[in-house]
């Protein structure tokens, strides 16, 4: 069964604030849910399926469905870190294609900037089978990605200046986003001169830490037809998990090597057809490796690919993260997958900032990465279209 085109993203909402000290996490979930439903022209009463991930407090979806006052007959709490929300879109598309649901609501919220705990918290991982073999080495999130960057440099000759190009492109876009956490345009030199946090990654190779959230509404074609809003068909999707493989650690690939081809095959398109790409950017290295793994360039050529403003909208070879991405705009709840989908929808609707709107944007890709490139991660890819295939 193909799900291609059966489901549409009808509503999206990104919380406009980056610091929200005066609201609870459930409250932010509710605000973004109401925002996305309003964008679609729907209400809570229309929702028949709810999706949440590890950022949903308490008992996850059970707690949130009760808090939000939803009445659903389909629930999915899939947790693959920052990629969860793209997985949710794919699962919703599959449930819609199977005729089980009509209106799916997906929410994300968190307040790490204001001191809120990270999704799940450390308690969540204390009983993981790997915990006692990975937790005694002072490895922060950035250390793992730094080891991936170092190995990529060793194997392929990638440089810190190549990685910096990615931050430069993101900052060039963020200057046009009034909600972005960082709006100053930076140069390659400024990235290289910023403080080394974990060699070879600098402060400006890392994403921002922000409060906030976002929500998506995915609907069946029947519902989409009845809405006034420009709905965005989900043409293809893929998801995959990669781990440490019993000690055969591979630092230079993500599971995008599986999720990408699956999504392209389902949509019947190739990387060359993509007009705009939202690429998960927890760190600059995440983007570079993902571009290779998705097939935008050969393995090891990511450094070359991102040079010369290739990622800069509107006229680069592959405009990316035109909202400023996680590197500059927003990384709500330390999870960037939700905002990747939201900006791809803005581009396809022609509602990105005029300075970064890709002309005639017909086909977009959104990609999420969750967990750590150094240990275990989830990759999820979506191909989204501008026009329904009817």
């Amino acid at each position: 069964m193909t799900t291609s085109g059966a489901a549409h993203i009808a509503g999206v909402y990104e919380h406009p604030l980056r610091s929200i000290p005066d609201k609870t996490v459930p409250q932010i979930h509710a605000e973004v849910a109401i925002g996305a439903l309003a964008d679609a022209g729907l209400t809570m009463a229309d929702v028949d399926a709810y999706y949440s991930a590890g950022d949903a407090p308490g008992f996850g979806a059970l707690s949130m469905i009760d808090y939000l006052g939803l009445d659903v007959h389909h629930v999915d709490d899939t947790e693959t870190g920052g990629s969860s929300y793209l997985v949710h879109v794919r699962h919703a598309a599959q449930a819609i294609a199977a005729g089980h649901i009509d209106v799916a609501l997906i929410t994300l919220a968190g307040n790490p900037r204001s001191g809120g705990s990270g999704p799940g918290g450390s308690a969540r991982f204390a009983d993981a089978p790997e915990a006692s073999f990975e937790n005694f080495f002072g490895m922060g999130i950035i250390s793992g990605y730094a080891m991936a960057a170092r190995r990529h440099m060793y194997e392929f000759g990638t440089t810190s200046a190549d990685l910096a190009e990615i931050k430069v492109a993101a900052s060039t876009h963020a200057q046009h986003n009034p909600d972005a956490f960082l709006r100053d345009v930076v140069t390659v030199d400024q990235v290289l001169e910023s403080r080394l946090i974990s060699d070879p990654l600098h402060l400006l190779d890392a994403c921002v830490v922000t409060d906030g959230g976002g929500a998506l509404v995915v609907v069946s074609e029947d519902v989409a037809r009845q809405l006034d809003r420009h709905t965005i068909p989900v043409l293809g999707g893929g998801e995959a998990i990669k781990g440490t493989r019993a000690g055969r650690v591979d630092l230079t690939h993500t599971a995008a090597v599986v999720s990408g081809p699956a999504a392209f095959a389902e949509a019947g398109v190739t990387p060359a057809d993509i007009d705009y790409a939202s690429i998960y950017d927890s760190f600059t290295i995440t983007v570079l490796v993902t571009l290779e793994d998705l097939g935008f360039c050969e393995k090891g050529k990511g450094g070359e690919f991102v040079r010369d403003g290739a990622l800069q909208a509107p006229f680069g070879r592959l405009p990316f993260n035109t909202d400023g991405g996680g590197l500059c705009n927003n990384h709500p709840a330390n999870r960037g997958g939700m905002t990747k989908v939201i900006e791809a929808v803005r581009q396809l609707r022609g509602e990105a900032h005029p300075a970064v709107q890709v002309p005639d944007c017909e086909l977009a890709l959104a990609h999420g990465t969750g967990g750590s490139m150094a240990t275990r991660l989830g990759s999820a890819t979506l191909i989204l279209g501008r026009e329904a295939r009817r």
Partner: protein
Amino acid sequence: MTDTTPTTDGAGPLPTGEPWVTHETKPYWDATAEGRLDLPCCTVCDLVIWYPRAICPDCHTSEVEWRTMSGRGTVHSFTITRAGVSRKWREHLPIVVAYVQLEEGPIVLTNIVDVDPATVAIDMAVTAVFHDTGHGNAILRFTATGS
């Protein structure tokens, strides 16, 4: 890059902690108390299994036996971490976090200790050292071979 700050001098040995010892992993932790790196190995497909577990993740047999590793390896990748760690690690910064490939195959997460971080490089030869946790076992770390 030049950085001549020693990795552990001054602040004493790197922090340890109390490992969660289970029925599956007890032989591993018991061996560390004696300065040995023992790993489960599959008797059917010969996989040396990291991290330790009771069932082979390749062929899914329970026929695994514990074998003693050489303790020798090479640096697969590393980073000199200078920030972004929890409180108990802060006084030890900078630290070298690394993946070391054991002579027997598996690539394990660890620290490189008692070396000048500026001298650490991919492919560098390293040897296992064991840092007492105070709980009847030890944490596996590595230092430059011959140091």
